[in-house]
């Protein structure tokens, strides 16, 4: 059976659009809400990224930090994140889920136990923000053996030599960080130059699916729709913050946003 992540890209390609990838933090601001959000937005989203909140995140911008803070205040534990995925997969078995977190969380669980939990709950992929290549080689191999996609990251600072090595060691999905920024920064480079870099990476191995993330909003998304996939994170976290501040159910606004995003890339 082909991996769900690859299938999601294939499906989007058949519809001649990029795959839409969402990111929210698990447990923001409670487990039930996260599950409801995932269920609801998954009608427009191809791949769901679920963040594991960490209290010393070094690459997250303000919006995701706020979400993580709320999740941790709400008492979220790593085991709850697995439970959320498991519950979700009971209803939407074929929608791929990627866990995103920091390496210390995996280390404290123990790499093997963490992966076993991933497998049991139905996790399809893993992104570890602070476990770059080549330090991630052994962990990425373990993922591969379990048919879990370890998503490698490439940044604007990544040299061509390094890019080639990373791509060679990647599975079917690669994450390209659009600019020098933490998550949710204002898009400070032109869509054209992001796409130029993207194509450079794509040329190295056209078979790999490359998603672009960081700084993507309802305004900028259409200009990047040539990519294999686009990740929306901070925008969604910000929307949750705003709804919670107004004591409204975040679902309503979130659904509106993902529908708009989807329309813009059709």
């Amino acid at each position, binding site marked *: 059976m082909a991996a769900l992540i690859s299938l999601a890209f294939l499906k989007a390609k058949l519809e001649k659009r990029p795959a839409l990838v969402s990111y929210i933090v698990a447990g923001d601001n409670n487990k039930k809400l996260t599950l409801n959000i995932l269920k609801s937005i998954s009608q427009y989203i191809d791949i769901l990224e679920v963040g594991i909140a960490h209290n010393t995140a070094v690459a997250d911008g303000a919006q995701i930090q706020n979400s993580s803070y709320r999740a941790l205040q709400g008492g979220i534990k790593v085991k709850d994140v697995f439970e959320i995925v498991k519950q979700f997969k009971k209803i939407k078995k074929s929608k791929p889920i990627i866990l995103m977190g920091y390496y210390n969380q995996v280390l404290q669980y123990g790499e093997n136990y963490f992966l076993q939990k991933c497998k049991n709950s139905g996790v399809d992929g893993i992104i570890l923000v602070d476990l*770059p290549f080549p330090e991630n080689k052994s962990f990425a191999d373990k993922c591969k053996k379990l048919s879990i996609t370890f998503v490698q990251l490439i940044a604007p600072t990544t040299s061509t030599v390094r890019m080639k090595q990373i791509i060679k060691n990647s599975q079917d999905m690669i994450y390209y960080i659009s600019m020098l920024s933490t998550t949710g920064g204002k898009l400070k480079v032109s869509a054209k130059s992001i796409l130029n870099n993207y194509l450079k990476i794509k040329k190295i191995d056209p078979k790999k699916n490359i998603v672009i993330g960081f700084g993507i909003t309802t305004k900028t998304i259409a200009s990047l729709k040539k990519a294999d996939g686009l990740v929306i994170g901070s925008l969604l976290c910000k929307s949750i913050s705003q709804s919670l501040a107004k004591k409204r159910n975040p679902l309503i606004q979130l659904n509106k946003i993902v529908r708009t995003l989807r329309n813009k890339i059709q």
Partner: protein
Amino acid sequence: MLKLQKGKAIIDQHDKHYLYGGKFGGNFVPETLKKPIEDLTQLFQKLRYDKKFIKERDYYFKTYVGSPTRFIKLYNLSLHLEGAQIYAKVVSDANGGAHKIYNAVVHALICKHAGKKYIIGDTGAGYAGKMLSMAAKKFGLKCKIFMGTKDMARQKVNCDAIRKNGAEIVPVDSGSKTLVDAVSECMRYWVSNCDTTHMCVGSTVGPNIFVKICAWSTAQISRELKVQLKEEFGEIPKKLKLINCVGGGSSAIGFWNEFMDYDKKQVEFIGVEAGGPKNSKLHAAPLTYNAKLGVLHGAAQYVLQDKDGQISETSSISAGLDYPGVSPLHCFLKDTKRARYTVATDEQALAAFKLVSQLENLRPSLEPSHAFAEAIKIAPKLSNDTVIVVDSCGDALKDKKIIEKRLGKLLWQH
């Protein structure tokens, strides 16, 4: 058991993944920072063997930092304790009042050599920030200092100094609002601005290159001490104990560096961590209390954390020691058993400050007061041919408010 190699600088005893003993340190950083870290690693590797650069460093250490700092005997304290002979290496003599100036000057020089005009850094007690702002001013660099709002409130004296030097303080109001959050925020800023900006990490923590640069800089302390010991005793004493407080661990590494190869029976290293308030479970002592190995700020180290890998809150009267992790180099020294680590509580540090400042013309800040607490504890049990040297790595002026509150005003006027 892990082993130290002789005849090789401790900062270079890592494997190809930059791990000491195969497990401490490394570069656990977002992809974006891989290249800037690699560039900095190459630049530093070149500079540290460049005679001109060494000359430049030594020139500024001498004329600007004020090297060498004094090495003095604490006669009254030694008499009072009736045991070992107690000395102090008065590193607080250095320009700015603490050892942080060595790292700051070297980073400012590297920043200039890298052709960058902006420099950023984190600070806890405010020393690292103050010194970086001084060095930035001296070398004409634009400077931003990241500092937790809790630390800003308790270390106002240093904040004023930072601003006076023309640097901007970026208040960090997330998490525990202390050093750990300041470092995170500083790293985030670097992720976004690494093309124009040089980052200085204020201690021997963070990705490997920052551990290296900092330890290489503070090594000046032990270079001076070695000469001063030989001047005083004609040789390195047969029974020598070097006591240093340990937060991130930059002054301790610098204080011990030149003595690594001596047998520990001759030159013992004692690191004193922050034990926190008496009768409280909170502290900042990952080594003493056997914290688990984890990853914090780009490096694997023993770090206070929960089962889920969330970094724990710490508590110490001393902002400079109030950090949940510790340098990978100290983890390495612990596991190789070259150094031993212990704690002093807030109360013990205050009592040590009181005794030292009453008996001697020396006013150690709350950080080295932790080290003095250990010296005071062990000296009476030791023979009088034992030599204890305490690194008095900071001046208490910055702690005036806290000390007055806890010990009263009269004492301060001494």
